Structures are given as structure tokens and as C-alpha cells.
């Protein structure tokens, strides 16, 4: 056992490695740990583990952690901690610790490595099952180990078997359906006080097991009497364990008990050299078995037994530390004050039922055990040990504390962390509350950091006493994961920062990065937003890029668009159903823009689809809609029209696409593909040709999203970067200008082209968008039937229009609502008539412009509207090249 130095509340201490901070402080004589949250009551350590309600600390060393129980912190060299009065601080520096996650499958998960858990693990390991056994404490062996017993070798050896995975310091924080459980393993805090960046500080285990054995044991509960919260008052099992392991602060002890456990712990204290002044047992007569196993051995050691009595009150020093206990016999009324250092309480065992309740197994009240126990009727869950009630022989009395008057009840603590007393319980019941769920919320009992480990059953018993019901008639204990507080970082694991979500990039991305283009997030993709020259801001870059697109030649990486390969003789008929316009009549080698609606008639995606062959099509979708559209196509083919001979295959990443845009695009294409007929007559709008472009086999489509003459060059993604490099190289003489998503948006908006997801939110029909021209009158298609619904054909629906602000530099913020002109400058609330979907500054117009959805929009063209103190005029949703002549170059 090596010594370590640590700091607590600014004071240096020496402790033994392996001790909890609580044990180390007790060994150093620290009794008064902190003051309570709401009432400033002096408090000390009461328990051994996560049942501890008082000794909360803030860890300031290492990664720092707010609000941890000192009973769960292992002292290490350099540990720095400070006591808390119930509330901690979040560290103001980032936690740079490493956290990770691991998935495991097993035949059996055993939760708890006490004697019964080990026995269960052995049983299944002997059968050859794959077993995972997890225990939350630093040491194997549960209570037996805490009592200093040696765990039998045949059980210990189970832990190292090949078919057994043993994880210590691992808390199962949640149990869920289908044998799924989540646990957190603490891996470095007991080794070092420094931040751990190379070894995961906490590993979150996600386990699936055919069968789960819950061996989660039990916590002791205290009793409720006046001034039951002083430093020096502890749970008896905890007190005996601390003393056995070297705490020498106490010379004398009184044990107050309701079961045989008190006797066991009294004898442990006695054997460690403490003068046990009395065991105060509320039970007068014991069974023959209990007399033999508990009372007689204590009497033999000369320990005084006070029968039929209990603790009523305590007295303290000026500092509030325990000095004596007032023992009372409720029958005779006799009282006796006994001076003592330590008051050890055995209020009964409360099985740890949480994990069972998470999956809906209700604990049952056992009067014989004065406790809620769990006997699982669920086949895949079994309970063993104290959880299942394996402590009958302790013969507890159903007793939670003596009768108290009002003054006494005011200082009789039920939930130490909440400073909630018997008086609060009486008030709740007096206000008409009986159910534990109501009382819990009214008094806050059970809602603090310790989640009512010591107060739950007490509360139910005390309410029962007040209203004359048995504890199980008060309601049932329901708990929710997590079982203990867990850092968010532990749940996130490695999914932090840049790896929270995948970052998707095209094959041309390295060029964009090297060019210093800021990126825009488009779903999971990073797309270049604009390509600033030195000294340019976004505004200047976009003006330059758009000018190049409309007057010279500009190029863009369009590889992110969704692409679906469609083959089969019925593909054309299928596309006729999926799109609002006709596709089966499209000639081989031609492309067509299509609009897709849901069954509700609302637009949900669009794109250009090309007929590559008689029975071969290539559909494009929006970048963000690719997966959704693929699911949609498959849904109709598999669940409605399986007779259609159509197969769909995703090829989004198979193909890289470079768009070459502008009046000089034809020239650039000619340089890239000499021998290709790029004349107006030889390469029609929406036509496709196959040719080598920069020596790379390509399919070139004459498609335009900007309204300018434009070509989209499609190549295998293996050659995307090479294509782009060659485009830049050969385009240098034409001052080829790369452009990003901002310019892309401006150019298409100047032409009034909608972007699904920008102008639409799932509530716009094609007609709303002014796209009646794309709705076929000749055929039925998915969603058409909904156009004739009353609401879909309402005359006052929001319709797509343009807006030109009167202040030409005023770029209306996207999403702005606007009102009729008479409301200019008015104070809200004012009735709005529409909202802005897209808004930019146009170099072509030398003024700002926007697209908007307005009630009765088409009838309002020419009207002025008010946006706060600004005004704008409603126009048709097209601003540049209204006759569409530029696309032919």
C-alpha cells in the first residue's frame, strides 16, 4: 500500500492508494465534511458508495469533474478536491480526456460481482456460455469483500476464464429492451490525477445479452429521528468497514438497529477495538435463530443490548458534531442519553432495484424483509442475492423511526441532500398527497445527486405510517436511467468535434481546400462556398464569380448531387408516375428536368434525369434528397408495383461532375475536347454526348442551372480531380473562374429557379411555385390526386413571387416575414402575408432581390410590401434574361 498526497479544501493530506477519498479523509480525522445545501447543517460521511448523500466534492485536478461522491473517488497522487454544499461548478476549460465506446455481445450479462453475482457467473461459465460480468466498485466481492471476507478461489477463478469478460469499476447505467444494457467503465482516474488523452478515461459499453442476471445487492437505509444528520452518524455497515480498514477517529460507538445486521456490525466494531457502548434494538423479542446468530454472540462479548428501544434524538458539540444519542423506549417512555463518538445506524437493507425497474419489472414489498425486492417473472432476466431478498434471516422490523413532535420532525432528515425532513412529508400528506410520485415532486425527496438511495423506502414507509397504508400501497418505485451521473462526453465517445457526424467530400475537394475556399455545410457534405481572391470578402468574391458566369466562363464542382441509375423496360413508365411531367417520351441521349411530389401533392424533390438508352436512365436528385428519393423509388417498386421491370442503383459517388458555365463555356469545352461538335446546332440544349474531355472518357450534358450556356461534364470519380485540374489549366487563357455554392444560389435565383428545401418546406404544390407548366395534364402521377383536394386548391395559397427592395443595398434576411404596405414601421403584432425564401445581392441588377412565398402572390404583382421599416415591390419571380435567350450562348 503506497502513500499518495492529495489536497482537500486547500489542505494537503496523505492517504493510502486504493482508499476512497472519504476513507482517506476519515483516516485523517476529518469528520465535518461540509454543510448542507439549504440549511447549512454540518454534515459528515454517512455511507460507503453511491448511497452517500453528504460528501459531495468537486474534482479540480485532471479533467475536473463537478459533483462526485467522495466515497467513489479513489485517492491518487496529485488529486485535488473540494467539498460542496450540494452544488458544484462546471469546469470552464474543455475536457481533453479521451472517451470511447465498445459494443459487445454475450450469452449472459451478470451485473454485480458480489458473492451471488460471482456464483451466477460461474454457473453460466461452467455451461460454456459467453459471460460478461460487470461490477461498479474498485474491488470484487461486494459486501463480503467489504466485511473483509476472503472470496472463495473457485469463484475468483471464474473471472479469468476464457469465456468470461470481467470489467471492474464498470457501472451499468441503463437496461433496455431485448437484453440491451449500457455501462460506463472508469479506466484511468484511479491510476492518475492527470488528464488522460491516450487511454480512454471512460469507456461506454453497449452490451447485448440473451440473458441478464441482476446481482446488484442492496444499500442500507438510515432511520428518521431528530438530529439524525450530524457528522459522526453513519450507516452501520459503512462504519464497520471504515473502522476495519484503518479509521481510528472513533473510540466509542452506539449501534441503533432494526435488524440483525446491526449486531454483525457492532461485533465488527468491537473486534476493531472500538468500545461498543450499546446495541439499541427496536425489536424486543427475537426468533430463536436470530438470538443464536445475532444477539447471543454480542452479549457474549459483553456488549449491552437495549431491547425495544430506538434513537429519538442526538446532541452535538458547538460545531454540531455528534456528542451523544438520546435513546428512548416508546412503550415505557424511558429515555437515556449516551455519550458516544460514533452512532451507527442499521435501518434495514434496501435492495438496488433500479435496473429491474428500467425494463418494467415491478419490485414487490416483502414485509418479512421490510423491503422492496425483485423476483423477475421475465424469462430473460433473473435476480439473485440480496436484490432477490436473500437477507430474510436478518429479520428486520418494519420500522422507519420513532414518533416525533413537530419540533423534532423539523430536524428529522429523510433526504439529507435535499434537507427534506419528516415535517416536509407531513406537510405533503396534509396537502392531500399520498402517491410517492406526488410527494417526491412536492418535497424534492429522491431528486438529488444520490437519487434517493437512502431515502426511497424510508419515504414510502413514513407516508404509509401517516396515512395508514402499507408501503407498497403508496405506489411503486420507478427509476429512470442513468443509474449514476454520467458525463456527456462519455456517452459521446469519439463522436466529438469534427467526428460528431461524417464530413463528406468530393474527389475534387483537395483543390478547393488548397484554393482556400471557405466551406458550406450541405447536409453532411462540405462544399466550397466561394473562392476569394486575396483581399476579397464574400460579397466581392460572389460579384466576381457571377460576373464571370454571365460574361466569361466559370466552373463549379457539382459532384454532390444524388444520382440513381435506373434500368429496365418499365423505367419510362415508372418515371412517368414518379415525376409530374412526361419522361417515357424522352429521346435517348436527352435530359429533362423533373419535379417530384409526395402523395399529398407537395413538392419534395427535383432534378434532371437523362435517358442514356432505351431502357437505361440516370436520375439526379438534390444533394440532400438522394437517400430519401432512393427509399421513395424502392417503396413504390417493392410495395405497390412489383410487376414493373425496374432496377435502381445508387451511383452518387461513382460520378464526378464539373459544370462549365457562361458565354465562353463553349470555347473552353472545345479546348478540352477537340473534335467534339460544340456548335449551337451540333449540341442542342438538354442533349448528351460521349467524348473524351481532357483525355478522360466523359458524358457531357448541355444543362443549365444559371440560365447561361452551360455544360456538365460527368466522369468517373477516379478522374474528377484530374478533370478539374485540366479545366483550370486549359481555361486559364479564358480566365476561368471557379465558383461556389453562394454564387450558384445567386445565379439560379436571378432566373427564378427554385431550390427544393429553400423555396419549399413540404407544403408547396407545383402550382404554388408557379410551375404548372411542368404538371402533365395527360397522365396520372404520384400526388396528382391531391391537387383537387379543397385545401390544395384554395385560391389564397402562398405563391412564389419575386421581391425588389426599394433600398437597393438592403438584402432582406432570409426567413423575414412581411406585411401589406400600410403596416410599414408598425409595432407588432401585425398580420403578415408572406415570407422570404431566398435573398441575395445581384451584380447583374446592381441591386438586392429576393424570392418569397406570398398569400395570393400572383395577384399581387406590382404591390408594395413592408418589411419592418423597409419596403419592396412584388414582381414575377424572374429577374435576369426573362426571355431565356442566354442559355444558347
Amino acid at each position, binding site marked *: 500500500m503506497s502513500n499518495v498526497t492529495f489536497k482537500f479544501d486547500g489542505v494537503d493530506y496523505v492517504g493510502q492508494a486504493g482508499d476512497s477519498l472519504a476513507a482517506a479523509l476519515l483516516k485523517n480525522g476529518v469528520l465535518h465534511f461540509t454543510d448542507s445545501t439549504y440549511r447549512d447543517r454540518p454534515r459528515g460521511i454517512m455511507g460507503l458508495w453511491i448511497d452517500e448523500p453528504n460528501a459531495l466534492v468537486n474534482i479540480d485536478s485532471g479533467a475536473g469533474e463537478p459533483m462526485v461522491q467522495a466515497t467513489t473517488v479513489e485517492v491518487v497522487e496529485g488529486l485535488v478536491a473540494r467539498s460542496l454544499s450540494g452544488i458544484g461548478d462546471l469546469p470552464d476549460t474543455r475536457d481533453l480526456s479521451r472517451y470511447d465506446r465498445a459494443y459487445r455481445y454475450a450469452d449472459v450479462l451478470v451485473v454485480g460481482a458480489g458473492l451471488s453475482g460471482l456464483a451466477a457467473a460461474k454457473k453460466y461459465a461452467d455451461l460454456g456460455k459467453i459471460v460478461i460480468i460487470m461490477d461498479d466498485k474498485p474491488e470484487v466481492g461486494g459486501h463480503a469483500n467489504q466485511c473483509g471476507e476472503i472470496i472463495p478461489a473457485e469463484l475468483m477463478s471464474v473471472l479469468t476464464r476464457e469465456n468470461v469478460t470481467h470489467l471492474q469499476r464498470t457501472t451499468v447505467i441503463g437496461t433496455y*429492451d*431485448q437484453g440491451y444494457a449500457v455501462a460506463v467503465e472508469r479506466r484511468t482516474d484511479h491510476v492518475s490525477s492527470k488528464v488522460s488523452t491516450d487511454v480512454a478515461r471512460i469507456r461506454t459499453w453497449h452490451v*447485448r445479452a440473451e440473458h441478464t442476471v441482476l446481482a446488484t445487492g442492496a444499500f442500507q437505509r438510515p432511520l428518521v429521528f431528530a438530529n439524525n444528520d450530524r457528522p459522526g452518524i453513519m450507516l452501520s455497515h459503512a462504519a464497520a468497514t471504515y473502522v476495519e480498514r484503518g479509521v481510528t477517529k472513533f473510540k466509542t460507538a452506539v449501534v441503533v438497529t432494526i435488524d440483525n445486521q446491526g449486531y454483525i456490525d457492532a461485533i465488527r466494531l468491537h473486534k476493531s477495538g472500538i468500545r461498543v457502548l450499546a446495541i439499541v434494538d427496536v425489536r424486543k423479542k427475537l426468533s430463536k435463530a436470530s438470538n443464536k446468530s445475532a444477539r447471543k454472540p454480542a452479549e457474549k462479548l459483553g456488549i449491552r443490548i437495549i431491547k425495544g428501544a430506538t434513537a429519538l434524538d442526538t446532541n452535538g458539540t458547538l460545531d454540531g458534531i455528534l456528542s451523544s444519542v438520546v435513546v428512548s423506549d416508546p412503550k415505557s417512555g424511558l429515555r437515556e442519553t449516551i455519550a458516544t463518538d460514533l452512532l451507527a445506524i442499521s435501518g434495514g437493507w434496501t435492495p438496488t432495484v433500479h435496473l429491474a425497474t428500467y425494463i418494467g419489472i415491478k419490485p414487490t414489498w416483502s414485509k418479512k424483509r421490510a423491503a422492496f425486492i425483485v423476483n423477475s417473472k421475465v424469462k430473460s432476466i433473473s435476480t439473485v442475492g440480496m436484490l432477490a431478498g436473500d437477507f430474510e434471516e436478518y429479520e428486520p422490523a418494519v420500522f422507519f423511526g420513532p414518533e416525533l413532535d413537530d419540533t423534532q420532525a423539523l430536524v428529522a432528515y429523510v433526504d439529507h441532500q435535499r434537507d427534506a425532513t419528516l415535517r416536509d412529508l407531513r406537510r405533503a400528506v396534509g396537502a392531500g398527497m399520498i402517491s410517492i410520485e406526488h410527494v417526491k415532486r412536492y418535497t424534492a425527496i429522491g431528486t438529488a445527486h444520490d437519487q434517493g438511495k437512502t431515502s426511497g423506502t424510508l419515504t414510502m414507509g413514513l407516508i404509509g405510517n401517516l396515512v395508514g397504508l402499507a408501503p407498497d400501497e403508496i405506489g411503486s418505485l420507478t427509476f429512470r436511467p442513468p443509474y449514476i451521473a454520467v458525463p456527456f462526453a462519455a456517452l459521446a465517445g469519439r463522436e466529438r468535434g469534427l467526428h460528431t457526424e461524417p464530413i463528406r467530400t468530393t474527389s475534387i475537394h483537395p483543390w478547393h481546400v488548397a484554393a482556400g475556399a471557405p466551406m458550406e455545410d450541405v447536409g453532411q457534405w462540405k462544399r466550397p462556398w466561394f473562392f476569394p481572391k486575396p483581399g476579397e470578402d464574400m460579397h466581392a468574391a460572389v460579384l466576381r464569380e457571377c460576373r464571370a458566369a454571365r460574361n466569361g466562363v466559370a466552373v463549379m464542382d457539382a459532384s454532390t448531387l444524388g444520382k440513381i441509375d435506373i434500368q429496365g423496360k418499365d423505367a419510362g413508365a415508372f418515371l412517368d408516375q414518379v415525376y409530374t411531367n412526361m419522361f417515357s417520351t424522352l429521346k435517348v441521349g436527352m435530359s429533362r428536368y423533373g419535379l417530384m411530389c409526395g402523395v399529398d401533392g407537395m413538392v419534395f424533390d427535383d432534378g434532371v434525369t437523362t435517358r442514356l438508352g432505351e431502357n437505361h436512365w440516370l436520375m439526379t436528385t438534390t444533394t440532400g434528397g438522394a437517400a430519401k428519393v432512393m427509399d421513395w423509388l*424502392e417503396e413504390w417498386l*417493392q*410495395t405497390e408495383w*412489383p410487376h414493373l421491370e425496374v432496377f435502381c442503383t445508387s451511383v452518387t459517388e461513382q460520378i464526378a461532375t464539373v459544370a462549365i458555365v457562361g458565354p465562353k463555356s463553349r470555347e473552353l469545352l472545345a479546348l478540352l475536347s477537340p473534335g467534339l461538335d460544340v456548335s449551337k446546332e451540333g449540341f442542342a440544349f438538354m442533349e448528351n454526348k460521349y467524348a473524351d474531355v481532357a483525355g478522360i472518357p466523359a458524358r457531357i450534358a448541355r444543362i443549365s442551372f444559371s440560365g447561361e450556356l452551360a455544360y456538365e461534364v460527368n466522369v468517373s470519380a477516379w478522374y474528377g480531380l484530374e478533370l478539374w485540374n485540366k479545366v483550370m489549366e486549359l481555361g486559364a487563357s479564358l480566365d476561368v473562374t471557379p465558383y461556389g455554392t453562394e454564387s450558384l444560389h445567386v445565379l439560379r435565383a436571378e432566373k427564378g429557379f427554385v431550390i427544393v428545401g429553400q423555396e419549399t418546406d413540404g407544403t408547396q404544390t407545383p402550382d404554388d411555385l408557379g410551375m404548372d407548366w411542368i404538371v402533365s395534364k395527360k397522365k396520372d402521377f404520384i400526388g396528382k390526386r391531391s391537387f383537387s383536394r379543397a385545401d390544395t386548391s384554395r385560391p389564397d395559397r402562398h405563391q412564389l413571387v419575386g421581391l425588389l427592395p426599394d433600398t437597393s443595398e438592403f438584402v432582406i434576411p432570409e426567413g423575414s416575414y412581411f406585411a401589406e404596405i400600410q403596416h410599414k414601421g408598425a409595432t407588432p403584432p401585425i398580420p403578415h402575408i408572406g415570407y422570404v425564401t431566398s435573398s441575395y445581392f445581384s451584380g447583374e441588377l446592381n441591386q438586392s432581390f429576393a424570392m418569397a412565398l406570398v398569400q395570393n402572390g400572383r395577384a399581387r404583382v406590382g404591390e408594395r410590401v413592408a418589411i419592418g421599416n423597409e419596403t419592396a415591390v412584388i414582381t414575377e419571380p424572374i429577374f435576369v434574361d426573362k426571355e431565356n435567350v442566354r442559355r444558347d450562348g
Partner: protein
Amino acid sequence: MLHIPCPYCGPRDETEFHYGAGANIFYPEPTTATDEEWSKFVFIRENPKGWHAERWVHSAGCRRWFNVWRNTITHEFGPTYKPFTEQPKRPV
């Protein structure tokens, strides 16, 4: 998280699937459906407490649509059945 029993791939995590609402919803012939029939198809779905026959698609896996009985209270799964096959009896 919840494992859903894909009839082709076996039980898989719910994050691999997309939900398709109630099963056995009759798709009316659009050209002859009344407004009521059509609205019922587009908007109305059952929301039972207990066993619910519903559709799932294994998007991150085999991409197949299938139907399955699921208990909305206990999250148990009952039998799966492929499109255009007879629905198994509601589990007890």
C-alpha cells in the same frame, strides 16, 4: 437501441431502418378515389395501444421493405411478413 427483425438480414439496430407507418394500407386508384377515400389514405393511420402491424425499410442494409407486428407498449416484435403476402394473425 431497439433491434428490428429484418426478414432478410436478421435483427439489426433501428438506426439502419426507416419507418413506413401502418401496414396493409390500401392505395386507392387515384383517378376514381373519392376525396374521403383519398384523404384517408394520405393522412389517416391507426395508433393502437398494443400490437400494430407496420412497415419498415432496411435502408442501410438490404433496402427491402417488409411488414411486422410490433407491440407499441412492450416493444416486442411479432412475426414479419413480406409485401403481398398474407398478414399473420395478430399476436396475443
